[in-house]
């Protein structure tokens, strides 16, 4: 168990750094809109979805409607459906921890639990659970600290919301760097820009989501055969 905990801790260190800073940014941003520590704690504990929480600051501060918030969450977090799909097998026999593992499956935790096996002497189920828990705690700690800093030291935070843009830009850059086929990313970019021009800044997200799914479905024969070749190539 000690070995498992140690392994989980070491593996989660990069996420610790990331979550403390991103959580901090979220907490400061939230506090700058007048919502303090309690809100940061509640949101990071219950929602626990980084990108969505940044978007949620906009929704909460702007007094969005519940329907708009639900649609926005569906759009921004739809990718979790696909993380889940790829973890169905791995999480199949994880026992009583399973509901928590599913709840805590963020982008970063996904990147830790989906990457291959664990060394000898490390309990895989225990590792899944501890990595999920550690990451959750880093995120809560970061956002609460951010809300405290933001409340105690008022400073001109105009423009701090760019941290969300920067986060998405970094993830996109990393995906671009590691992807062999750039058509999915270009589809996302192209369809979104076209929808933005047609539907305007407040209405374009849902049509964009539908358009992206349609275009990717049309491209499936081309993209999938290439993927299968790559998969075969990796196996060689």
């Amino acid at each position, binding site marked *: 168990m000690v070995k498992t905990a140690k392994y989980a801790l070491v593996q989660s260190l990069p996420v610790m750094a990331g979550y403390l800073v991103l959580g901090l940014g979220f907490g400061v941003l939230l506090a700058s809109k007048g*919502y303090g520590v309690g809100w940061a704690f509640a949101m990071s504990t219950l929602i626990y979805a980084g990108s969505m929480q940044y978007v949620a600051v906009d929704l909460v501060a702007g007094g969005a409607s519940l329907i708009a918030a639900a649609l926005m969450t569906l759009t921004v977090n739809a990718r979790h459906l696909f993380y889940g799909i790829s973890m169905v097998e791995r999480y199949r026999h994880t026992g009583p921890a399973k509901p928590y593992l599913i709840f805590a499956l963020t982008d970063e935790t996904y990147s830790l639990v989906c990457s291959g096996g664990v060394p000898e002497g490390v309990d895989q189920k225990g590792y899944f659970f501890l990595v999920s828990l550690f990451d959750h705690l880093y995120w809560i700690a970061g956002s609460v600290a951010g809300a405290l800093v933001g409340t105690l030291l008022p400073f001109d*935070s*105009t423009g701090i919301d760019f941290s969300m*843009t920067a986060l998405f830009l*970094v993830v996109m850059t990393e995906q671009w760097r590691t992807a062999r086929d750039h058509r999915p990313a270009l589809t996302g970019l192209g369809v979104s820009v076209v929808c933005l021009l047609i539907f305007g800044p407040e209405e374009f997200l849902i049509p964009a*989501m539908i358009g992206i799914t349609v275009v990717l479905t049309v491209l499936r024969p081309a993209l999938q055969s290439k993927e299968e070749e790559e998969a075969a190539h990796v196996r060689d």
Partner: protein
Amino acid sequence: MFGIDLHAAALVAVIAAVTILLRFLPFAVFGGGRPTPRYVVYLGRVLPCAIMAMLVVYCLRNADPLGPTHALPELLAGAAVVGLQLWRKNTLLSIAAGTVLYMVLVQRVFV
């Protein structure tokens, strides 16, 4: 004030509920032992890249090239983020430097 807070609490509850639903749904639908449909597996692979590009567009939706700043703060800070990430591959550095640059630009340069 109290009314606003109740609405904010309802918003947080809705966002949390939808997020939880999305996370549990695949396990509820595909956890029963049947193989996952190939179309769904395919979407699972190609959607993340497309969605991230969409979120970037969402973040920059109000940047107006014809407006008073010509979207220069977004353009410069965004280029800095991508450039730093390609150069140093340090996520935190890229985000922190890009955000600080953007804050300086909108607070001091393009006022």
